[in-house]
């Protein structure tokens, strides 16, 4: 997917100006934290589960080589073909090759952020294939020619009316009302049913890879993943190395964290484990299965100071709790992953330079880290990225020099007090009567949207010293 993160601020301002869409995001931001909180409270000791999973994920990443080798062995024994892809383009070409070997024409796809990351759909289309997204949200944005705005609910930015218009335009089904949400879901279902039956290839993602059995786990609410996995002749599972876990019970522990954090449900409608192709005694299932494991810089992240980011389970809670995500909307982030987790991942998976605004789209309020089921210190990672920006001289030199000058002066208390006393008393004289400034030349960023309150008078240090001297 083409990177657009350079335009974050501009796009966010535009997103705010679209009042209906902004109101819809505000409503989501009120609703999603409430359902998550209720699910977490109901669970009991969620924190203990969170720490338990964190230890397991850490252990798995620390021993990634071992568990990957084990997974490959077990998965191969189950009849799967395991492929490694270093880069996005390598994954795409592995998948296209498989499709071409089977003379495939149609692909039914389950929801997969990894294939958004590699731009698989466009690649397959250029290779002459028809690709149908079968997750309802993904299907909607595919029909609309858009990209996901949220990692869990890709079409959350669309209103019911917009979806209705879209279906009336795209599905040649004659006159109909399509008033309710269930009408819309019903229509999507019936349109998709034919695609499932016609597809030659199914592509899905994975929420976990289980080393001891070679199985993969997929958590969904619509069951479309299972249809993609079981109806077409060939199944391709596309995921990244960091999904690996040692045991089956580790995957179910992740699942318990994931569903509550993502949608506030105690359980999703479907949690499926895929072992491999249909065995001789079985009546259904794919005849051939492939698992493509993408690295795309995960190994580099693993070796870096940002390795905690690999513990992310893609629940979307950090997006739902981020007021900057709510204000800006997912599309403003300009790539695949938005919100706090996206502001860390996008620079790491692309370039620091082209994504310079993202690590700055944060007030360090800490709400994301508080709810992150993987206990990732997202504000710390974002600050570390700002540090890296500063070391590489990325971003506004005016800000950087200003802050360095401030620190230089603040490290010289005598000079600091001499200067600040004078500046504050001038500002006080100018602003005392009105109480605040509408415009200030050296604080134009501040006064762009808010008045600058005028200082109360002489600095505290000066007044305190004067009072003390009086007493002595």
């Amino acid at each position, binding site marked *: 997917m083409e990177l657009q993160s350079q335009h974050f601020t501009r796009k966010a301002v535009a997103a705010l100006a679209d009042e209906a869409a902004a109101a819809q995001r505000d409503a989501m931001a009120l609703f999603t934290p409430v359902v998550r909180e209720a699910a977490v409270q109901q669970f009991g000791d969620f924190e203990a589960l969170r720490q338990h999973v964190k230890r397991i994920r850490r252990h798995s990443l620390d021993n990634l080589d071992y568990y990957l080798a084990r997974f490959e062995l077990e998965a191969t024994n189950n009849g799967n073909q395991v492929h490694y892809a270093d880069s996005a383009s390598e994954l795409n070409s592995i998948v296209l090759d498989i499709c071409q070997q089977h003379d495939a024409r149609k692909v039914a796809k389950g929801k997969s952020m990894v294939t958004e990351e590699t731009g698989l759909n466009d690649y397959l289309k250029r290779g002459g294939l028809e690709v149908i997204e079968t997750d309802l949200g993904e299907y909607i944005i595919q029909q609309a020619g858009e990209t996901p705005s949220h990692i869990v609910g890709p079409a959350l930015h669309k209103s019911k009316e917009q979806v209705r218009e879209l279906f009336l335009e795209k599905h040649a089904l004659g006159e109909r009302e399509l008033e309710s949400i269930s009408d819309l879901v019903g229509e999507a279902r019936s349109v998709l049913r034919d695609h499932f039956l016609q597809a030659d290839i199914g592509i899905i993602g994975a929420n976990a890879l289980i080393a001891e059995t070679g199985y993969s786990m997929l958590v969904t609410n619509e069951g479309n993943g299972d249809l993609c996995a079981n109806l077409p002749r060939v199944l391709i599972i596309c995921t990244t190395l960091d999904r690996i876990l040692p045991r089956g019970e580790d995957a179910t522990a992740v699942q318990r964290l994931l569903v509550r954090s993502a949608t506030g449900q105690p359980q999703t409608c479907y949690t499926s484990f895929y072992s491999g192709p249909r065995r001789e005694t079985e009546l259904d299932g794919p005849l051939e299965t492939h698992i493509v494991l993408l690295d795309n810089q995960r190994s580099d992240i693993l070796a870096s100071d940002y390795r905690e980011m690999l513990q992310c389970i893609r629940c979307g809670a950090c997006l739902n709790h981020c007021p900057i995500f709510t204000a800006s909307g997912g599309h403003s982030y300009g790539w695949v992953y938005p919100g706090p987790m996206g502001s860390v991942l996008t620079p790491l998976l692309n370039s620091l330079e082209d994504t310079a605004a993202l690590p700055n789209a944060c007030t360090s309020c800490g*709400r994301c880290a508080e709810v992150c089921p993987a206990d990732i210190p997202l504000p710390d990672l974002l600050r570390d990225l700002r540090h890296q920006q500063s070391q590489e001289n990325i971003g506004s030199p005016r800000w950087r020099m200003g802050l360095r000058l401030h620190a230089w002066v603040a490290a010289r208390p005598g000079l600091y007090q001499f200067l600040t006393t004078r500046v504050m008393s001038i500002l006080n004289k100018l602003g005392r009567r009105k109480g605040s400034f509408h415009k200030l030349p050296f604080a134009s960023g501040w006064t762009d949207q808010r008045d600058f309150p005028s200082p109360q008078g002489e600095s505290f240090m000066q007044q305190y010293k004067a009072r003390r001297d009086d007493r002595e």
Partner: protein
Amino acid sequence: MSDSSAPRVSLFVTCLADLMRPSVAFASIRLLEQAGCIVDVPQRQTCCGQPSYNAGEYASASVLAKQFIEQFEDAQYVVAPSGSCAGMVCEHYPKLLDGEWRQRALALAQKTYELTSFLSDVVQLDKAPAVMTELPTITYHDSCAGLRELGIREQPRELLRKLCQVEVREMQQTEVCCGFGGTFCAKMPEISAKMTDDKLRNATATGAAMLAGGDLGCLLSIAGRARRQGIDIEVRHVAEILAGELYSPAIGEGE
């Protein structure tokens, strides 16, 4: 007072109180003395380095952190009228520094407190230093650093109840950021303003005439936005209210 068992507090004024609103620091001293503390003000304090740190300017921030540690590490207690400044010392100095300096930072973190948590959890102040005049209805803004880094939520409310007989009118979404975020509000002013507008909407919906808080950064930004939007709400630091020092105009208001 020269009671030798009295807690000795070094006041970490914070640069915003020093430069923008000295009344907050004077009110803090008054409250601490009322609680029986002996207060001193280290004279060479400037800025704790938080702006540099947040901007990722770790080298500059380290210089200021070390300067701060040297000035305050001999104190019995360090108290700041700000959750984010106390949080900088308690949470972030140990992350920023290593080796011997990290140990010194950890030791300092042990005895550094935000004002309302110190008054409530350590010295248990239960009497106001002044006779309270009639107060308007108050809603409270929890600043993020105080709330999440230091767990400050009940303390200021309890102090307002005990000292001023005021029950806070709670607004919706108290745990959501007001959009200040230090340099964030000047780097991304439109997004920041939207967040502050949400905060102001929730605050005014309570019907309260005054918004109190424990962090001047947030309060300056909220008051500045209220002025710009013509929203009529008095914005004050909680220390001024608790100390009964309401003689100076509220933040952003003229004489």
